[in-house]
């Protein structure tokens, strides 16, 4: 063999070693249980790191590995709905498919992914779907496209292995496993409350456009659910009244009415976000848009025991 060919092969082989090493590390650490073949890193370290970096990917892969016929889809607000309590009341085993700061277009994408993942295993469609939807998500500008990334990662091992969020998560999982968990910094409730009312609400409401295309996509979800006997509930979780007042300040009251009117045609809508004993009560919320666990239990109780006391059906 030509001497120069030998040099190229030798140096090329050495050059790709770090790449091979990285592939091995990802397969061994496997923070999202993508390959599901290694237990070297504890499940707790994996989950904590993966949820912190990319909850959307973790929850999707987790659902893929353990699919259920009933799901709750939404952003971080629907995490407060206790699935054990739903099981006690109905016998149905629900999976919470959520992503932090999920947008409505992503929630719809998650519906389709979940349905296809369940269908691919059981050859039938989902039975029960609860979609958490609030007015602040119902905005053309409330848009993100992370589910497209998740789809690519699920479909292509190469993209998964060389994804930035996998790099971050592998590092964090190894750190958590071998150096112990770092205690989470506690947020100052008052400061975060004020930040949510001032800045987050402004981000949500200061630029608004009716989401025509998203509504069409919701109608496709409705048609699919109807055609396949999927029990669809749209749930509007409560916000504290101070957060709602910001919506009034940005002159979006009519748009909010339109939102509730629009989604009434999509499925059974259960509304908790109107002036009531929860929205008036500051201690019922961790922050202006996230209820406490006990309020989550009340909401589940009302929906699944078919006795709406605080909430109402639209």
């Amino acid at each position, binding site marked *: 063999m*030509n001497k*120069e*060919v030998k*040099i*190229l092969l030798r140096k090329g082989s050495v*050059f790709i070693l*770090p*790449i091979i090493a990285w592939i091995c590390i990802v397969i061994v650490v496997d923070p999202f249980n993508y390959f599901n073949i290694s237990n070297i890193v504890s499940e707790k370290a994996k989950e904590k790191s993966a949820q912190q970096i990319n909850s959307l990917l973790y929850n999707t892969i987790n659902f893929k590995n353990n699919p259920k016929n009933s799901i709750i889809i939404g952003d971080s607000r629907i995490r407060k709905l206790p699935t054990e309590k739903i099981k006690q009341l109905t016998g149905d085993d629900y999976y919470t498919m959520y992503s932090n700061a999920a*947008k409505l277009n992503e929630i719809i994408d998650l519906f389709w992914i979940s349905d296809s993942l369940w269908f691919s295993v059981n050859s039938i469609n989902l039975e029960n779907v609860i979609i958490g939807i609030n007015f602040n998500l119902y905005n*053309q*500008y*409330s*848009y*993100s*496209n*992370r589910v*497209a*990334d998740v*789809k*690519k990662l699920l479909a292509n091992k190469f*993209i998964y292995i*060389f*994804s*930035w969020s996998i*790099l971050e998560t592998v590092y964090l999982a190894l750190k958590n496993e071998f150096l112990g968990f770092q205690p989470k910094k506690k947020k100052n409730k008052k400061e975060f409350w004020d930040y949510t009312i001032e*800045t987050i609400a*402004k*981000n949500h409401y*200061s*630029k608004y*456009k009716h989401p025509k295309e998203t509504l069409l996509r919701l109608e496709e979800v409705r048609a699919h659910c109807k055609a396949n006997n999927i029990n669809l509930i749209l749930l509007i979780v409560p916000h504290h009244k101070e957060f709602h007042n910001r919506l009034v300040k940005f002159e979006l009251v009519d748009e909010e009415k339109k939102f509730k009117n629009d989604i009434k045609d999509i499925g059974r809508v259960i509304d908790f976000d109107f002036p009531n004993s929860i929205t008036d009560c500051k201690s019922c919320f961790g922050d202006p848009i996230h209820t406490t666990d006990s309020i989550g239990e009340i909401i589940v109780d009302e929906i699944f025991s078919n006795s709406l006391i605080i909430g109402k059906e639209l």
Partner: protein
Amino acid sequence: MCWKVEYIVLIIASTLIDYFVAKKMADLKEKVKRKKWLLISLLSNLGILFGFKYFNFVNANIQALFDNFNIFYGVPAFDVLLPVGISFYTFQTLSYTIDVYNGKTPVQNHLGIFAVYVSFFPQLVAGPIERSRHLLPQFYVEHKFSYDRIKYGLQQMLWGFFKKVVIADRLAIVVDGVYNNLDDYSGISLLIATIFFAFQIYCDFSGYSDIAIGSARVMGFELIDNFKRPYFSKSISEFWRRWHISLSTWFRDYLYIPLGGNRVVKWRWYYNLFITFLVSGFWHGANWTFLVWGGLHGAYLIIAIVLIKPKEYILNILNLEGGFIHKLYQVTFTFVLVVFAWIFFRANNISDAFYVINNMFSDIGDYTNLGKMKINLRGLGIGINDILISIGLIAFMELYNLYERSGDVWIKLEQKPIWLRWGAYYILLFGILFLAPYSRVNNFIYFQF
């Protein structure tokens, strides 16, 4: 990118026509007879290009004109895809025929080698547009395996991939998001998207050129340089000596000079310049936006010529000529002019371009307000951090370009210790692997031309 395998017939047709036309011309002594054969080549090649690229545009404009006068015009649109690389290989093969006609290049007797010249895969779809004098002789040379040459080619490909996949595709998220939904954006978003487009198209196209040149080099072929740090140009004429060099020299040699170039009366010189840039704009695409873009560059050059003497006079009085401040001003001013023209290049239509121009500075007082910027960018699915990362990548790329001014970066890197060399390779390689926005893969912009 869409394609149809049947369109291979077009490149075969162009190849065969130019091969036989050139052979015929070589056999003829009289220029008049040679000219007839040259016309056959020009008409058939440009005819194919017109049919597939420009017919629908011209047809739609005639339709609109007739509609204005309520006259029936029933010529239907031609339902075709734009064949990949047609503008590039048409110009490449035409340059050969014209050079044979002018006696500047010998006729090629080997059909297979000529076909490889027309369809040489590294540069087939988006250039550099090679000249027969430069590329054809290389097919007759034996290319021995060379470790250094292959390494150099791979290094250039690596840098090209980095510019395309990491920088251009990341900038495209903002640019496409804004320019395809203009009604939703104003002020700073429009400005950011427009500046980002200037770097997106540079990284996209020069990235492709680097990959093409690098991959050809791996096989032992040298292609011409297509870009030389264009955004450091101190004038528009310098910009065109640094941007898409293979195309601008093509237009210089086969259109501008045959029109008379600058060896004519002044008004005719201006006319030649303007026509050359107008045609160059039209070469890019069948849309009024490209015509305006080309026309703007033509106008810039004419104005620069007209203002030469007053400018010299002012610089002499202020004693600024050649100083750093003067150079900085020249580079910045040229960049602003180029970016302004890019608005027309990127906008989907003329009214969109005017929307961008009219609204770009609508909230100039809030340009430094990050909170407002965040709200303004809502709907793109990205945050301020993504913008900052993009700016950082642009800065990195321009620092590379600055470092390149004193010589080829990779050759300079050869003198450095191994940890630094390999470190640089790994930064680029892992950058490509980890920083590329895979869910938003974009074709090369110039594939559409």
